[in-house]
């Protein structure tokens, strides 16, 4: 992988400075998913498996077109199918390609205790490094999108890499390449935002979808995957896309103030007992002035 393309700006569980911290690149990469033109063909699911070398998993039939209830360690890209009743009573099928959102402020990376198991490249891709992963599952608690999944065989966590290997070589992600309707786009964050806003405007003005808009949640600093939704005020309807995702406050407290409170507490304990010994010393046993009273 090209060093310049995949320079690391954030490292999980890392003591001390990060070599690439503060590096700014003009090109933050971004996937744009236009849910209004998705036909639910699942070509992206197949392309993802093919590129990443996984065989097709057993499907779970749940009275829906959906392949399985949620993404799996070896199934990173899943179209979520949701029946949705419009205000006029008619029913529509909402389809959303679910995968890692590649947050600018990744909750998985914040929660991870293993040095270098999760990194964020300067192009915005959040990538798991399985060689450094200890399989603790903290990222599961840190993620606001329910994405990291555990492989119980290898005891490692997996998720969508945004095809960092392809992107590093100047290619678009496999899912993008496979999309037959052009509902998937890949490019710089600025370009994708621009394209998404243009499409949302078109939907609002020409298709009567007054609530159409772009999903790029600010709670996680924006994401490397953005959606055009028919109704941006109700993202939950698209298979539980959170309205205002953010790193859980428990995780932020745990990895922030709690760390310092705990560390100071432990330091206080060790210093405290040492000071006690220096001030008061050991207890004396009656009749034995030497202080090692109990030695049999």
């Amino acid at each position, binding site marked *: 992988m090209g060093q310049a393309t995949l320079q690391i700006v954030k490292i999980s*569980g*890392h*003591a001390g400075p990060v070599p690439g911290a503060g590096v700014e690149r003009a090109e933050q990469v971004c996937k744009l998913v236009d849910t209004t033109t998705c036909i639910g063909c699942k070509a992206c699911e197949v392309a993802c498996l093919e590129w990443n070398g996984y065989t097709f998993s057993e499907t779970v039939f749940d009275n829906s077109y959906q392949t399985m209830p*949620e993404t799996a360690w070896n199934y990173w890209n899943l179209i979520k199918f949701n029946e949705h009743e419009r205000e006029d009573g008619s029913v529509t099928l909402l389809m959303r390609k679910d995968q890692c959102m590649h947050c600018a402020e990744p909750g998985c990376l914040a929660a991870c*205790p*293993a*040095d270098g198991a999760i990194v964020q490249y300067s192009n915005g891709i959040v990538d798991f490094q399985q060689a*450094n*992963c*200890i*399989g*603790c*599952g*903290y990222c*599961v*608690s840190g993620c606001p999108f*329910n994405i990291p*999944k*555990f492989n119980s065989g290898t*005891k490692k966590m997996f998720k969508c890499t945004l095809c960092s290997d392809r992107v590093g070589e100047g290619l678009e992600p496999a899912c993008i390449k496979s999309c037959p309707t052009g509902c998937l786009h890949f490019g710089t964050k600025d370009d994708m935002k621009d394209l998404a806003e243009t499409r949302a405007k078109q939907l609002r003005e020409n298709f009567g979808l007054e609530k159409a808009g772009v999903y790029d949640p600010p709670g996680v600093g924006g994401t490397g995957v953005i959606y055009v939704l028919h109704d941006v005020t109700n993202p939950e309807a698209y298979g*539980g896309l959170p309205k205002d995702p953010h790193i*859980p406050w*428990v*995780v932020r407290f*745990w990895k922030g103030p*709690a*760390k310092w409170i*705990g*560390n100071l*507490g*432990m330091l206080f*304990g*060790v210093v*405290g*007992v040492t000071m*006690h*010994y220096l001030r*008061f*010393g*050991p*207890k*004396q*046993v*009656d*009749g*034995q002035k030497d*202080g*090692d*009273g*109990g*030695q*049999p």
Partner: protein
Amino acid sequence: MSTSQVISSTRAGHKDGGRILRYTLHERVHHWLAALTYIYCLITGLAFWSPYMFWLAELVGGGPTARFWHPWFGVGFTISMLWMYKMWRGDMQTTAADLAWKKAIAHYIRNEDEYLPPIGRFNYGQKLFFWLMLYGVILLVLSGFGLWFVESIPWSMRWVRYLAVTVHVASAMATIGAFIIHVYMGTAMVRGGFTSIIRGEVSTAWARTHHRLWYEQVTRQNSAEK
């Protein structure tokens, strides 16, 4: 301390010459099972706690190995603590003597032991430590299962994941505080304590000084036996 009239060398309290059996082999084994499993969990737990202590995982074979064994040692610690509960439950009940001792605890801290009321086999501080570790391990093991099988907690119940993290961290910190004091007192502050939990015996002078009521009880039982 059992009030049974039968005193044998396998029972705490047996008095032989200038020495008294304070901890039976059975008690010592369980203390050290708990100690070693706790210390393993402590080292690996601290490694997961802070990036600045992640190197501790290297001491026990690296991050993945530490992560694999941490919960199993935790289960081992839980079992040894429950066994300890079965073993010491009676000894660890607070008595009237403990309450009097507790009022004078400042003298104990300042090593002014001459002002302390006499106490039985365990003092109030030891009992407090026992109950803190027992309730601590119950919270640790319950929240630990939440962290161990985090994916088994459905997404809709994810508050349980967050609760598990909070409880695990808070109860671990409480036990670490108690553990620091316990190790300090058992090794540096109360000389003879460390030997007693290894070899089981203390001198009569030690017993008279630190646990006078227990000493008197043992002496009484011993003379009754003769």
